[in-house]
């Protein structure tokens, strides 16, 4: 695509993604400065901010450690059953935080508070680091490591000065996703009774008495996100693009030796905590829950709805992400960076804020969309745009610009070049992005609660309805099916890390 067209398309996509933010700013602005100051400069906001930031830091650090270690073990060592561990390590992504939260509460007495939330969030989110880092390590050029070794660096020095540097953009990108997710998570913190921004916003909205307060809190959250985005940008400046056509040889593997058993045990323990605990609880409840009459038809309908809205959401998200990702990959520069960064802003907004702002948008601006699944798909697109943008940007590496130029010189118009060369080469990477977005849509709860057409239930909303009335047994079949549906794209993502 010529740059002007690409630029226009990217800006359009961004405008759609930023709708909720505009709503937020307008409403916050209406409140007036005095009111904003009253809301923000309180002891409670300071406490919430402190706790949210602390949770974010703890979870991000823990996820980075677990994710990088797991990625290194499965891609660069002689770990036994690497292929199986490679997929296993990705699977916790299929477990929504509210499902994991319930499972732990039901298994461990008195499991609540800050550290409980941190544990659950880490177990559910570390694959955001693991997946990109494993892919980066599997694709990194082994020649660089060999050069480092030949220059007298030992294996550990090589690991820290070369290997991890090669994966640095992937680590930073994954850590950013974890940090943003933690800031906006609603499921785990509300079930484990940890007061963070998101929970406070939800409570304020839900009780209906303090919408302005909630909006102001959301704005603070957006500001926090901006700081994070800036930090990630700084850490990214030395990252390499266009890494080449992949490795010609596989990298030499690190011999674990006596570390073999501890390494295997650590991976098994993570698997048990992240997958075993929820699985055990779900099985226990499901046996009781599935026996109720009439349940199967309801479950079937909810599963069908989940599939269709998630597919619609994933498609719309990819459509919007394509121009933004291509712009970042093909015309790097200050404008592309700004567009890319802006696409992240809505990602950190709690789903509840996205939901409410789109309800407002539907009623006031786009009434034909209101009460249709398309408004819900739009909500998903707004929330998950950065996931798809990252996938498109990564996939663009497979289609270096010189191929476009050759195709243009052979007399093909930009559109034909896009459809015959660029997109076919990117299709695998884009497919991975689609799988990730689909999976995230399946798990999404708060925006789904607000934006679904009346009477339409998905697995997530049914699960929420039943758990909030504490009928765990009735909720369990939905939870089991939800995890099952989410596990399919996760499985595909895990297999893509390049080890099998």
């Amino acid at each position, binding site marked *: 695509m010529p740059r002007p067209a690409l630029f226009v398309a990217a800006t359009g996509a961004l405008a759609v993604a930023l709708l909720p933010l505009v709503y937020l700013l307008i409403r916050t602005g209406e409140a007036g400065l005095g009111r904003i100051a009253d809301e923000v400069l309180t002891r409670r906001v300071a406490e919430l901010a402190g706790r949210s930031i602390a949770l974010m830091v703890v979870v991000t650090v823990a996820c980075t450690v677990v994710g990088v270690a797991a990625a290194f073990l499965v891609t660069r060592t002689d770990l036994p059953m690497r292929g199986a561990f490679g997929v296993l390590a990705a699977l916790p992504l299929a477990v929504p935080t509210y499902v994991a939260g319930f499972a732990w509460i039901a298994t461990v007495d008195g499991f609540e508070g800050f550290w409980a939330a941190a544990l659950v969030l880490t177990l559910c989110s570390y694959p955001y680091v693991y997946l990109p880092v494993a892919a980066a390590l599997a694709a990194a050029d082994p020649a660089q490591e060999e050069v480092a070794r030949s220059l007298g660096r030992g294996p550990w020095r090589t690991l820290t000065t070369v290997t991890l540097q090669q994966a640095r953009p992937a680590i930073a990108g994954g850590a950013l996703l974890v940090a943003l997710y933690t800031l906006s998570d609603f499921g785990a913190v509300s079930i484990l009774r940890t007061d963070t921004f998101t929970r406070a916003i939800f409570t304020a909205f839900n009780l209906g008495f303090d919408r302005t307060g909630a909006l102001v809190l959301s704005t603070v959250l957006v500001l926090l996100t901006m700081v994070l985005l800036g930090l990630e940008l700084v850490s990214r400046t030395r990252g390499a693009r266009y890494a080449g056509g992949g490795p010609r040889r596989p990298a030499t593997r690190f011999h674990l030796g006596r570390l073999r058993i501890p390494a295997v045990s650590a991976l098994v323990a993570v698997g048990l905590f992240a997958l075993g605990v929820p699985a055990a609880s779900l099985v226990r409840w499901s046996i009781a829950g599935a026996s109720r009459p009439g349940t199967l038809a309801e479950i079937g309908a909810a599963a069908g709805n989940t599939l269709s809205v998630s597919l619609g959401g994933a498609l719309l998200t990819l459509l919007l992400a394509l121009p933004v990702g291509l712009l970042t990959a093909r015309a790097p520069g200050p404008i592309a960076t700004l567009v890319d960064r802006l696409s992240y802003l809505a990602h950190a907004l709690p789903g509840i804020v996205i939901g409410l702002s789109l309800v407002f948008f539907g009623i006031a601006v786009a009434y034909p969309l209101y009460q249709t699944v398309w408004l819900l798909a739009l909500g998903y697109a707004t929330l998950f745009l950065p996931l798809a943008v990252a996938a498109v940007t990564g996939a663009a590496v497979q289609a*270096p610009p010189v191929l476009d130029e*050759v195709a243009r010189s052979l007399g*093909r*118009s930009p559109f034909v070049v896009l459809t015959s*060369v660029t997109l076919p080469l990117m299709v695998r990477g884009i497919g991975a992005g689609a799988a990730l977005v689909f999976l995230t849509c399946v798990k999404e709860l708060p925006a789904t609660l607000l934006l679904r057409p009346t009477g339409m239930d998905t697995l997530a909303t049914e699960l929420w309805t039943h758990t909030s009335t504490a009928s765990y047994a009735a909720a369990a079949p939905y939870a089991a099916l939800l995890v099952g549906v989410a596990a399919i794209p996760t499985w595909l993502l895990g297999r893509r890390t390049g080890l099998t």
Partner: protein
Amino acid sequence: MLDAQGLRKSYGPVLALDAVDLTVEKGDLTAVLGPSGCGKTTLLRCVAGFERVDAGTVTLDGRAVAAAGTHVPPHRRHVTVVPQEGALFPHFSVRDNVGYGLDRSARRGGRVDEVLALVGLDGYADRMPHQLSGGQQQRVAVARALAPRPPLVLLDEPFSALDATLRTDLRRDIRAALRADGATAILVTHDQGEALSMADHIAVMRAGRIVQHGQSNQVYEDPADPWIAEFVGEAMLLPATIANATTVDTALGRLPLRGAAGAAGRVRVLLRPEQLSPTDGDLAEVTRHEYHGHDTLLGLRLADGTPLLARVMGQRTPPVGASIGLDVLGAVRAYGDA
């Protein structure tokens, strides 16, 4: 065919092209020869339309494709390119790569097989790019560029990633293929051997400018300045004094001048190693040998210490330490002090 006038292009503070003029006649193979970073790739990208020029005009076959306010996009210029790494479409077979720029009737009309035969790859049409060696990939890239019979083909250092023996064969075959197809082409290279052996004309480029443009032998024998003399081939620049309108005095005696004397008084004259032929005498001492198989380059030192090089063919190689005389073949060109 191609007429570029006053092309200027800068990337931020870097002036990559600084008033480049270049004309290429129909059916000609012109080499743009210059050191790395002098702007060769930028020139090709401006001609192909991948970059917008800051100033100047590009005219193709009488049609202005780049001028003030005009920028014809690449796909409407009918100029094809062969990039350094070939850049085959990895998801297409050889046949689909070569047929990419053809319309359906031309594809069915056997043009693909025709150009593949031209580059010596008949029978490879159904392979995928990763099943080809580097040299074969380059051949396919050339076939792909030739297939639509473009008025102009641009080759950007297409052989530089290949090893020496492969390169020699490929150069010969590609040149023959371009000839057989009657193509007009610009070959960019930093390798003077490649430029001399392949091109009809050479345009020497330095720091964003074309500093000399002429027939290949003319550029070698009559370089416009000492820098070009040293860049295009092995060169010795010997101090000399103008004797009269047609001769100079040097440490090797009085030599005939090629062309006008230019400056008067002290000058430097250009000698190529193959102009020196050993004879009996004691003008110079042999200091070293550089053996090339078909010939040997002798390192020499004159009595006053001036180092010289002489290229001798076959067996007549005087040993190191021997004293020899020297005959100078042909005329020399003089340069005023630069």
